[in-house]
């Protein structure tokens, strides 16, 4: 079943992947797809925007600062060490007497040229190694450098300057490794590098090469040991697999925890691994979560690390255990473990993850009373600040193209908590308006923050942005609205019942509390949009007077932007094309309300019957040929939770409406006293056979008998809408 579901998602995704089709929709992830487990901080060090791009870059720059001068800014060092190309550096090398703005350059060209020499060698080394890694490389290719790798290795190892010795050793190992001289790398490690202090950065940077060299020298066990010492789980798995030995990620993590309990690699491996559990269950929620041996082992490891005293971050391990417990369906246990995490030694990053998970567990566990609402309000305020503070250009760009998914942790976490946990429980607790407000915020917060909508199209074989709107500009443009009728909020308001929808619209207009105002301002509460929904639902529920009230408030500008339209006459029994109009819903509501009033007033039975028939046709058509009067479903494409389960053709509302239409027709037929009027009614209903048989001498009877071959119910039994009232 889950594969079928996946297939359907894929098909829908593929089919809906182009702006050129009317049914294209933005991609708004199912909230439960958003990963919430978060322990790995891949953001650069806030103090220096370099860590993360190059391992150890921040520390390395600081060490260069120690070797030179505290007055040199780290950014200057970073610029020279990491960003300057070989060519640029050679220019500096050749023009050392020139004056440089960069203080590090100035220092190494004037005061410490041994560093200048070292960096030239290092840059040559990296340049050649990079070029050799290119698929285009061929031995004997001109490297464009003044030296070969062999010369780099030789020079590096020959340098005995104690200050720079460890740095030269790193360059030597790198060059030797690239030359596949693995045993020489290992020898250097054993004779000199391994005796450097454990916290020596160069030693740490050399170690992965030594692990790799051991692997190439067919000593996988040794390689794994070295990788474990630096916490590189992925390399451990790679080595063991290549050596023909099976080792699981959890086994590898256990080894790392034993050798390097505070390795930076642990967070990355842990996050990647736990997220696999998370998505494998959450994605297919109907499936039971299966506790595998790996799950059990990881849970045990988490508890052991949390309590064992070797980790500098026990909170992260308690948090992990709590997360695993929740995946297993034990939210109470998860809450207890999270409490342990909250009171354990932590980092600001993990503290944030714990706080998010607490919001999630509260949503699952606390009673939905006013006290919880107050708590939720505070929690959402905090989450909202995070959403605002952490948004970046990538998220802005993705949002502007209509994608909201797991690309942004903070918004994803908010959506998952609100849509997957809070809203269903709010609805269950009878707080449907609150649920709608929350869903609206969940769906629209990011769009309102970004306030940009990019329209893509193919131009010269390239799919690119052809127009950029503000959100309001898009919503009032002449494009079909592909956003507001394809999200969870819309799905909810369209299925929660007309009274609740109306209450919501009223609350959007007249907020009663700070929480109302908070949620309204973070959702999309455009009055045209909401009045249109309320009015359409009134039409669906045959509440035409109210429909008039709401649809009457929808501005002309918005009506041109409907994502549905009406092609046929709503009062014709036959499929009769009409000119499309933008205010077709309002016009229909007005006519229906007028008919309703008229046939209640008119006493003459034949006239009354005719009005009733027209009214009945209006009801029927508004659920059939002119479905756009009562719904959005076929005019937009959304595929979510509720909608897919709705039987639009025979749900209670449709059944009641069709029943009402049938009843009115029967009443009208019983009421009629005049043959001409009877024939007219049957003719309106396209019951031509009945006209010919029962009213042969009326005007319509003669017409039918004269043109019977052209009239469809003589030969088209399958005309569904004709037979509905027979």
């Amino acid at each position, binding site marked *: 079943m889950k594969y079928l579901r996946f297939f359907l998602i894929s098909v829908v995704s593929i089919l809906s992947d182009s702006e050129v089709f009317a049914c294209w929709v933005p991609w708004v992830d199912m909230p439960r797809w958003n990963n919430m487990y978060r322990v790995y901080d891949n953001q650069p060090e806030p103090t220096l925007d370099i860590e993360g791009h190059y391992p150890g870059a921040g520390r390395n720059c600081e060490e260069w600062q120690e070797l030179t001068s505290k007055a040199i800014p780290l950014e200057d060092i970073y610029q020279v060490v990491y960003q300057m190309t070989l060519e640029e550096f050679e220019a500096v090398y050749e023009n050392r007497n020139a004056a440089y703005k960069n203080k590090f350059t100035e220092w190494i060209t004037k005061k410490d040229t041994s560093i200048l020499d070292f960096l030239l060698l290092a840059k040559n080394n990296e340049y050649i190694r990079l070029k050799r890694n290119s*698929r*285009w490389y*061929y*031995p*004997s*290719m*001109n490297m464009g450098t003044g030296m070969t790798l062999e010369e780099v290795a030789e020079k590096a190892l020959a340098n005995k300057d104690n200050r720079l010795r460890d740095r030269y050793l790193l360059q030597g190992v790198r060059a030797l490794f690239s030359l596949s001289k693995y045993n020489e790398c290992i020898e250097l490690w054993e004779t000199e590098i391994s005796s450097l202090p454990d916290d020596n950065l160069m030693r740490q940077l050399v170690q992965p090469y030594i692990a790799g060299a051991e692997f190439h020298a067919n000593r996988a066990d040794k390689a794994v040991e070295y990788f474990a010492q630096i916490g590189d789980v992925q390399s451990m798995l790679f080595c063991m697999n290549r050596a023909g030995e099976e080792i699981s990620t959890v086994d590898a993590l256990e080894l790392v925890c034993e050798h390097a309990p505070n390795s930076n690699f642990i967070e990355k491996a842990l996050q990647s691994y736990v997220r696999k559990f998370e998505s494998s269950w959450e994605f297919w929620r109907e499936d039971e979560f299966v506790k595998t041996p790996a799950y059990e082992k990881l849970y045990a490891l988490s508890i052991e690390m949390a309590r064992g005293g070797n980790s500098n971050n026990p909170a992260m391990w308690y948090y992990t255990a709590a997360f695993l417990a929740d995946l297993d369906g034990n939210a109470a246990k998860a809450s207890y473990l999270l409490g342990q995490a909250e009171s354990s030694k932590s980092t600001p990053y993990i503290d944030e993850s714990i706080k998010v998970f607490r919001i999630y567990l509260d949503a699952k566990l606390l009673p939905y009373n006013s006290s919880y609402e107050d708590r939720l309000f505070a929690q959402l305020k905090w989450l909202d600040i995070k959403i605002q503070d952490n948004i970046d250009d990538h998220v802005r760009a993705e949002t502007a193209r209509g994608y909201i998914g797991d690309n942004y942790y903070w918004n994803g976490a908010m959506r998952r908590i609100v849509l997957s946990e809070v809203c269903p429980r709010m609805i269950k607790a009878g707080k449907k308006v609150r649920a709608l407000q929350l869903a609206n915020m969940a769906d629209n917060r990011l769009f309102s923050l970004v306030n940009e909508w990019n329209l893509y199209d193919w131009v010269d074989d390239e799919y690119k942005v052809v127009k950029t709107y503000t959100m309001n500009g898009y919503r009032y443009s002449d494009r079909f609205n592909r956003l507001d009728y394809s999200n969870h909020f819309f799905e909810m308001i369209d299925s929660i019942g007309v009274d609740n929808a109306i209450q919501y619209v009223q609350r959007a207009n007249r907020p009663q509390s700070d929480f109302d105002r908070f949620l309204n301002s973070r959702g999309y509460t455009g009055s045209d949009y909401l009045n249109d929904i309320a009015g359409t639902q009134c039409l669906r529920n045959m509440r035409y007077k109210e429909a008039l009230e709401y649809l009457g408030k929808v501005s002309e500008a918005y009506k041109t932007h409907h994502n549905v339209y009406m092609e046929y006459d709503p009062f014709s029994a036959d499929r009769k094309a009409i000119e499309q109009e933008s205010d077709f819903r309002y016009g229909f509501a007005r006519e229906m309300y007028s008919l309703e009033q008229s046939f209640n007033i008119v006493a003459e039975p034949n006239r009354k019957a005719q009005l009733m028939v027209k009214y009945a046709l209006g009801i029927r058509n508004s659920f059939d040929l002119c479905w756009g009067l009562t719904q959005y479903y076929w005019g937009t494409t959304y595929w979510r939770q509720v909608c897919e389960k709705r039987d639009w053709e025979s749900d209670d509302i449709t059944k009641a409406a069709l029943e009402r239409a049938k009843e009115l027709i029967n009443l009208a037929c019983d009421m009629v006293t005049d043959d001409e009027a009877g024939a007219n009614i049957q003719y309106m209903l396209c019951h031509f056979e009945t006209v010919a048989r029962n009213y042969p001498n009326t005007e319509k009877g003669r017409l039918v008998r004269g043109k019977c071959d052209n009239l469809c119910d003589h030969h088209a039994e399958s005309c569904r809408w004709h037979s509905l009232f027979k």
Partner: protein
Amino acid sequence: MEHLLKVIFLLIGASVFMGCGDERNATANRCAKRNSVYYWETVFELDSTERSFLQRHSISRIYLRMFDVATEPDFLNGTSQIVPIATTKFASSIPDNIEIVPVTYITIDALRAMAGKEPEFASLIVERLLAMASYNKCGKISEIQLDCDWTSTTKNSYNRLCETVKDALSSKGMDLSITVRLHQLRETPPPADRGVLMLYNTGALKNAETYNSILHIDDVVPYMKQDGYAIPLDYAFPVFGWGVKFKNNKFVSIVSYDNHDISDNEFIRYERPAASEILEVKKLVGQKLGKPANGNILYHLDEAQLENYTDYEISQILFN
């Protein structure tokens, strides 16, 4: 002195008479007419028979495929990258007195992907071809060749590529040649010093009705509507054969000429142009486009294939 002048005049006269083909195809800037052969494998390995073949037929130039340029998915960033593939390995040394013309085949996907980045890849292609030639001791290189089935939609990109390659080679005193397929004759040639008209694979391989997809004069005639071509041309003739297997008239695969393994509803179309057929095409092409600028070329050096032709037939094909 008088005697010396006579000799000089005689030499000049002889060179005018022997010339570089007829007027229509006489603009080659390196006029040494030579017999040539393509080598189109992924391992360069010549056995004694092949070496002997080269000697017997005075073949002094090998157009040697060095690598193909193709696209491959780049899993790191979800795009595709243009990379050299199927790089030829050198298991044999290059015979003495043989000039090597390094050739690279550029797939149409790679060409499309290169759009806008032609200079970057032109330089990589030249650098790699020359590095391979140098590393494998291919001797002095005076020409490199690009092979690509470009069409009118990719022509501009290919032109830019050729232009950059030609400029780069020109500064090194080398020439650029290109392969020319029959359908490309209708287009203005890309900037190159000369071309090699591929007179093989002229028919529709996968069509069960095709008589001989390797070479058939009926497939060549429609393209011989013009006199001459804007750059000097040499001609490459096929001296190979294969079988084309069909099932229910649908193409299945290319098989060896010796393969007779068929099941129900299958048949194999055996194709190997006879020398007479090749010579007929040679005559037609000579009439319409002129004699080869630098000489005729065999496609390709493979003893197992060449043994199907007599030395006399080969010499007739190569004869200028």
